[in-house]
């Protein structure tokens, strides 16, 4: 009979959770403030990069290819509006506004992400 839980299991789960916590703390420490920028990539190449400022007016970016997608942006947010892909997971990511938010459409190989300006380490002490 297989056992349900062992000491090795506890160690494994602890390692996975600690690694996740470490990465989260680390990325929170490197968090950005100030203005957010949107980056739209296709096949790993940046095709649009713009400031997500508060006075940005609504716009749509048509991205062609085998599987065409449409990315929309307005003040402070960017998101997949439409996609010809089979599952539409990319649209379900919803609006991205915080630094680090990322949505991808894997079939179309398009990703949309929000980035902040890197906080200078010196600014913390100042």
């Amino acid at each position, binding site marked *: 009979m297989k056992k349900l839980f062992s000491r090795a*299991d506890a160690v494994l789960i602890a390692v996975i959770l600690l690694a996740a916590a470490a990465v989260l703390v680390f990325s929170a420490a490197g968090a950005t403030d100030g203005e957010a920028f949107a980056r739209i990539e296709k096949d790993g190449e940046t095709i649009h990069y713009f400031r997500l400022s508060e006075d940005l007016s609504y716009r749509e970016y048509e991205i062609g290819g085998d599987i065409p997608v449409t990315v929309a942006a307005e003040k402070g947010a960017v998101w997949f509006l439409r996609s010809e892909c089979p599952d539409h997971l990319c649209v379900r990511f919803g609006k991205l506004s915080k630094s680090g938010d990322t949505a991808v459409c894997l079939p179309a190989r398009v990703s949309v992400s929000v980035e902040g300006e890197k906080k200078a380490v010196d600014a913390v002490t100042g």
Partner: protein
Amino acid sequence: MRLQDKNRGNHARRIAELGIFAALALVLSFLEGLLPPLPMMPPGAKLGLSNIVTMFIASSQGLFPALLIAVLKGLFAGVTRGFTAMILSLAGGMLSTALMYLLFRTNKFGLIGVGVAGAFAHNAAQLACAYFLTSRTMLWYAPWLCVLSAATGTLSGLLLCAVLPLIRKLERK
């Protein structure tokens, strides 16, 4: 632990059983697709219920029958959800099946540990695919997927533990 002892067992029976379990895996992955998306997780993150089937087969019948089910699941994803889904399913399914089989062989891990490791391998393989297909920024989800693996893997282990006595009962008939 084999499904049946070697004297009684015959080829046809094993194949029939494998067919039933393959069908079960496909039904579970289809039903799972009907569930609402998990909060805090990227869309597409799932409970991995059909992994319970590959996990059981990996422990009872060995590596190759389990890999066969993973491949069938991948092809099913390809037919129903498209090429990219197939690549993701194959990568995640085969890596996690192989890892679960190896951990069962060590005899050090329980069902929960194997389930978590399998879920983790599945997520890691899919995140790696997303990384190569699109962009680095997907890696933001890595820590959340770790947390997700711990939760869904534990669920898989508990469910398999609950179902095992029932499967054993069927085996004896």
